[in-house]
């Protein structure tokens, strides 16, 4: 069995989806936490000056979507055929833009007026644009999942993003999207994922400054 390590900060952030994938797959990993004070020195030794990293038998992989997809493939959580795998990619990519904007105004934007403006636009325009399409995709697919009939890494990745937005932006954000709400709850209440989340105690925030960069 390969030796896995997740190297990240002590928050949910960009590593939470990986941790949930490991929990569903029932695969052990070492959760290496870099403290924010240690980051400036540690940064130099990382491939791209960023976290998270996945270490597999001492080889490192970077880029959170890449890592998620790799784990999805390794643990058979990537759809039943190439088209379904591509649909996993598509839905993750489509929701990445939304999360990147959330990261932008939440952690990177220093101008308070601009921050408020971006958040307002996020709620009024970006969320509805993305969620309405995802809602219709979920509705058409039937069942509990976004792609095909089985759980994929895309379900975990997207459910995590929906939870972030619900927790940090608007607790009622999924009210207009019943299929997405049902989907998110279904994924996050899968026994192994639920057990992991209850045990982990990480939150979505908790770093003093923009350390994801």
């Amino acid at each position, binding site marked *: 069995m390969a030796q896995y390590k997740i190297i990240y900060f002590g928050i949910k952030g960009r590593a939470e989806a990986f941790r949930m994938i490991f929990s569903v797959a029932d695969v052990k990993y070492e959760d290496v936490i870099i403290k924010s004070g240690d980051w400036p020195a540690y940064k130099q030794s990382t491939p791209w000056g960023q976290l998270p990293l996945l270490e597999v038998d001492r080889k490192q992989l970077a880029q959170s979507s890449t890592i998620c997809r790799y784990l999805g493939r390794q643990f058979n959580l990537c759809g039943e055929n190439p088209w379904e*795998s591509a649909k996993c990619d598509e839905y993750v*990519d489509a929701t990445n833009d939304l999360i990147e904007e959330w990261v932008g105004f939440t952690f990177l934007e220093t101008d308070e007026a601009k921050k408020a403006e971006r958040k307002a636009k996020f709620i009024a325009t970006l969320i509805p644009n993305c969620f309405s399409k995802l809602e219709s995709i979920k509705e058409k697919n039937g069942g509990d999942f976004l792609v095909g009939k089985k759980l994929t890494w895309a379900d975990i990745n997207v459910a995590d993003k929906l939870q972030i937005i619900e927790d940090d932006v608007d607790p009622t954000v999924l009210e207009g999207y019943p299929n997405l709400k049902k989907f998110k709850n279904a994924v996050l209440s899968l026994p192994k994922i639920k057990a992991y989340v209850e045990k982990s105690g990480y939150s979505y925030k908790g770093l003093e400054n923009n350390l994801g960069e």
Partner: protein
Amino acid sequence: MSYKLTYFDFKGRGEAIRLLLATAGVKFADDRVKLENWPSIKPHTPWEMVPVLHVGDRSLSQSLTICRYIARKFKLMGANEWEASKCDEYAETINDLYLEWIKFNFEADPDKKAELKNAFLTTLVPKYLIKLNTLQSNNGGNFLVGNTLTWADIFVADKLQTFEDTVDQGVLNEYPHLRKMKDAVFAEPRIKAYIEGR
């Protein structure tokens, strides 16, 4: 199986896909949308965005997803799953730099644009390309991953060419291994033929 790529009539996020389809030897309909027609076409796309790849009667969106789908189907993603993930990692990394380029390229205010250009060249380009240049050098040969051409080479070469064409002809001067990789990609017979026939 019929392939149609719907994208604007410029390189942007569509060109890497066109180059990849050409490399794979796949005939495709190059459905180029004029900007003035975009408002009427937009609502009919799955995410109100292009590129969209139509494969038979199904469609796929998101440029990296499309690249990866073609690459997997036509064996342009390395020799094993680890190499496939390295393709992903490098493509996503250069995509981050490309997103920064977009901010510069579409800035209307000339003063702000000059400022963004400076930041791009002095901070962002080195941040990404020093490491990528070293990776290419360490990998040996002409390619970024393993021993054969992958979609990562094509994707990265396309973006580097864009930076050369639109920001500074000399942007790769300090990254000789990346220049070598880019030249190798554009010298690939099918890519050369596609560009000459464009």
